[in-house]
């Protein structure tokens, strides 16, 4: 049996979570959470930690030279830098619509990179 500690990042409360693991790696119990989101965060953090990725992409002909983007869903933590590079390569044409998919299945993660604002063309 072993223990791992995390700060839950699911909401601004930031609960201190303690996860008790079997030697097999199975989660035995989660303590310290205020809500069910904490429990599922802890379980995911042990097996497959994920984060929402947020950055910008270069835009041609837009009101701004860059447009903010995000991963629509949390992406594998270990692939964030690969995703950052893939996003860095991209340049899109204005106008951009919020929610528009800019990279489908980024780095084979099954996660989409989408625009997070409307950006008009100049």
């Amino acid at each position, binding site marked *: 049996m072993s223990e791992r500690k995390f700060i839950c990042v699911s909401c601004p409360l930031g609960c201190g979570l303690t996860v008790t693991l079997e030697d097999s790696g199975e989660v035995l119990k989660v303590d310290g959470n205020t809500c069910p989101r904490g429990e599922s965060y802890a379980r995911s953090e042990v097996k497959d930690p994920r984060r929402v990725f947020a950055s*910008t992409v*270069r835009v041609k002909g837009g009101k701004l030279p*860059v447009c903010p983007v995000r991963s629509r869903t949390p992406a594998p933590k270990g692939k964030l830098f690969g995703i*950052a*590079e893939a996003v*860095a*390569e991209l340049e899109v044409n204005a106008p951009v619509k919020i929610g528009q998919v800019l990279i489908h299945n980024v780095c084979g993660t099954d996660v989409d990179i989408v625009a997070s604002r409307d950006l008009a063309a100049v």
Partner: protein
Amino acid sequence: MNYDVVIIGAGIIGSGIARELSRYKIKIAVIDKASELPSGASRANSSMIHGGFDDKPGSVKARFCVPGNKLWHKLKDELDVHMNECGSYVCAFSDEEVKHLETLLEQGKANGCPGVEIISGGRLREKEPNASGEIIAALWSPEAGIINNFEAVHAFIESAQINGAELFLETLVTGLLFDDKGGIRGVTTNKGEFIAPVVINAGGVHSAEISSWAGDNSFRIIPTKGEYFLLDRTTQGFIHSFMFSCPSKAGKGITVAQTAEGNLLAGPTATEQEDPEDHATTPEGLAEVLKGARRLVPAFPVNLNITTFAGVRANIDTGDFTINALAKPRGFVNVAGIKSPGFTSAPAIAEYVADMVRHELGDRVKFAPNEKFIPERRNIPRFLYMDMVKRRELAQKNPAYAQIVCRCETVTEGQVIEAVRRGARTVSAVKMMTRAGTGRCQGGFCCPRVAEILSRELGIPLDEVTRHGGGSRLLAGRTKEFLLKKKREEAAK
């Protein structure tokens, strides 16, 4: 390039002399190593226009201070410079210090400084309720004031430019040129030679070094750091004038003043140092200023501090201004060691130097009057101080005046563009010319906006915009560049 007169240094002295000499039909070059003006001692000082009681009668300083004061009261309108004509108090905390006030009063009378009188501590506090209750008497000098030193330097140099003088920034003097008769022939710089039969050394902290190139080692400059606090304009009215303490064992005489723009200023220290370009503030210096300020005004609201800064003054080992035309090499003029009251004296020194050069070096340059000399110069319009009618007119004429860039000091885009038109190339230059960035957020809001305007107006990429010239770039490149470069490097491996 051929000129009649080369002036080294575009501080308040060099630019003042340039303006006076532009009353003649001669070719003038003013050169300064900085990217923006003012840069040396004229940039970071108390901006005090002294009454003129502080200098020993008979000294060179005494000769120029009172006339300089009188000139500023006139020049502030002629050149459109903000000056707070507020008067000054020297405060005495003991009977011994009252005796010192009496000496100053006598000196003031001897120097022709008008209206000086000693008043009681009680009367002082009627005028300045925040003055310390421990002050027992004060010397009041009604003609003293405080000026916007950035505007003053720009006013002089722009006035000189209007009348034909040329300004060369980022031009560092590296040596002197001599003719075969032992006279001066010009200067060498990082940008080439400037040929002229008259060279005026107004090099501030570097003036002794420049003078030594001409063979005159008669004085030594002691770079002396002065540190300051500058408080938010919401402190306006906390005190109304310029308050000094008597020089004593307790301290070197920290002053507290309301600036021409309504900020509260406290300082300076006086720390001698080797490096003429070390402008760093220190914990000891700042502590000394705070202590000195609290002695004069115990409730000094330091929590409203917006910036601290230090200036390096060109103190001179002889203790007095050194102003002379050398016998050898002929054509070389020193205007050195212009420490306090240098800013006050500047216009009087400029008149004197122009006269001296005309009389003593008339054989080298023909000084015919410039009949087209225009004495007036207008400042960049100051939106903050205008009434609504003027504001509307201006905004109608030029929509850039209907766009605020700096919200703390209410500076419009029109003003920033005008500053660029008048020669601003850096964020700091814009700041000194328009006050964008001098307010309580210290450029947090306006810096990116000013940088964008500079980039647009100068036609340079945003990441080439600098804070104050040289290597002071604001930005390190575009987003994505670091990642892509890394990826390319890894791929190359």
